[in-house]
């Protein structure tokens, strides 16, 4: 367990933080994830990579944690996220910092788009693995990422940044 934890806890934590947007909650989440792994080790059939299994459990726990939050809190969070998209990229553009604006827009994507972007780019998961983690068909994985990227382009465009696509 120590080796498994040492190898995967940082990525699991970061995936959790991106989903729940709260470091404390994400820390609680990783304890729960690895405890589940401890309890269910016998059920792991080795058909997928351990990291894929861990990320699927993390996603499930993160969504449960988000559901437990009060609706009011979620609304506030959504409002904050919207504020992020409209204000901060503009400030970033003033500083002519496309990179910073891109990061802000990546943060401002919807949870569904955020998770798919992270799974493909950061966690380097294949189409099949993302389909397994998110629980959607492989073709939907491809189109969802395509629309996540379009949304990202729209957010950047709204902030005055044109990148030549779409």
């Amino acid at each position, binding site marked *: 367990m120590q080796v498994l934890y040492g190898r995967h806890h940082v990525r699991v934590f970061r995936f959790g933080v991106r989903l729940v947007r709260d470091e404390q909650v994400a820390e609680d989440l990783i304890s729960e994830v690895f*405890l589940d792994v401890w309890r269910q080790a016998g059920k792991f059939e080795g058909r997928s990579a351990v990291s894929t299994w861990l990320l699927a459990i993390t996603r499930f726990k993160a969504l449960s944690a988000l559901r437990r939050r009060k609706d009011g809190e979620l609304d506030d969070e959504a409002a904050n996220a919207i504020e992020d998209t409209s204000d901060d990229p503009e400030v970033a553009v003033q500083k002519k910092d496309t990179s910073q604006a891109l990061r802000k827009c990546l943060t401002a994507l919807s949870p569904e788009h955020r998770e798919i972007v992270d799974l493909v780019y950061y966690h380097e*998961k294949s189409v099949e693995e993302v389909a397994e983690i998110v629980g959607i068909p492989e073709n939907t994985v491809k189109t969802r990422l395509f629309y996540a990227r379009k949304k990202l382009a729209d957010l950047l465009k709204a902030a005055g940044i044109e990148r030549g696509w*779409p």
Partner: protein
Amino acid sequence: MMAMKKMLEQEPQAPGEIEAMLPWHAAGTLSDRDARRVDEALGRDPELARQYAVIREEYAETIDLNESLGAPSARAMQKLFTAIDAEPERKPSASRNISAISARISRFFASLSPRALTWSASLVALVLVVQAGVIGAVLVKNQPGSFNVASLSMNEPITRALGPEAPPRALVRFAPEARVADITALLDSYQASIVDTRGGMFRLQFGNKAMTKDEVAGLMNKLQGEKIVSLAVATP
């Protein structure tokens, strides 16, 4: 929300087959065959190549963004191992294996016809009789009629085996501000592994070889001097 999601996914401007694979190409997770197809398409389609450049930018920024999120504190690990300590002791999985095997055997016998079952039983009985006969014959043949007494061979040196010495262990409490990355680095540098945890204390084992008392004392002093260690006590 669900309806909106469906609309979003069913938007008419779906990406082309190669276009949809570009993000995975940037991340290097396509199969060799698909990667070759994407490379060929990129070579002949400047529009696609422009989109790919944009994707590589997104890819790099997503990695930077995630890397900037840092790592969890030691609290998460302590919480986990405390919870594991509190878990009821697990039954050995052997019982599960045995029940699976017995279920398989039952299924096998259930699948046999009564006639096949009768023949199988007769065959097993015959094998047992033959086996008993062979064992009996071997015993009678080997009976020497004299006693063999366990005796000391004087050709070998007389030694007293004390059993393998255990490597040293210590109870360690890490400082509250210690991060998991620091603890992992410390474990690596001391070639130590966590044996168990209890009440925020970690029982560590150092290496695979035994140490003298002085060496253990030196090790404890060195450990105690580490910034992230608030307490280190040698333990059996």
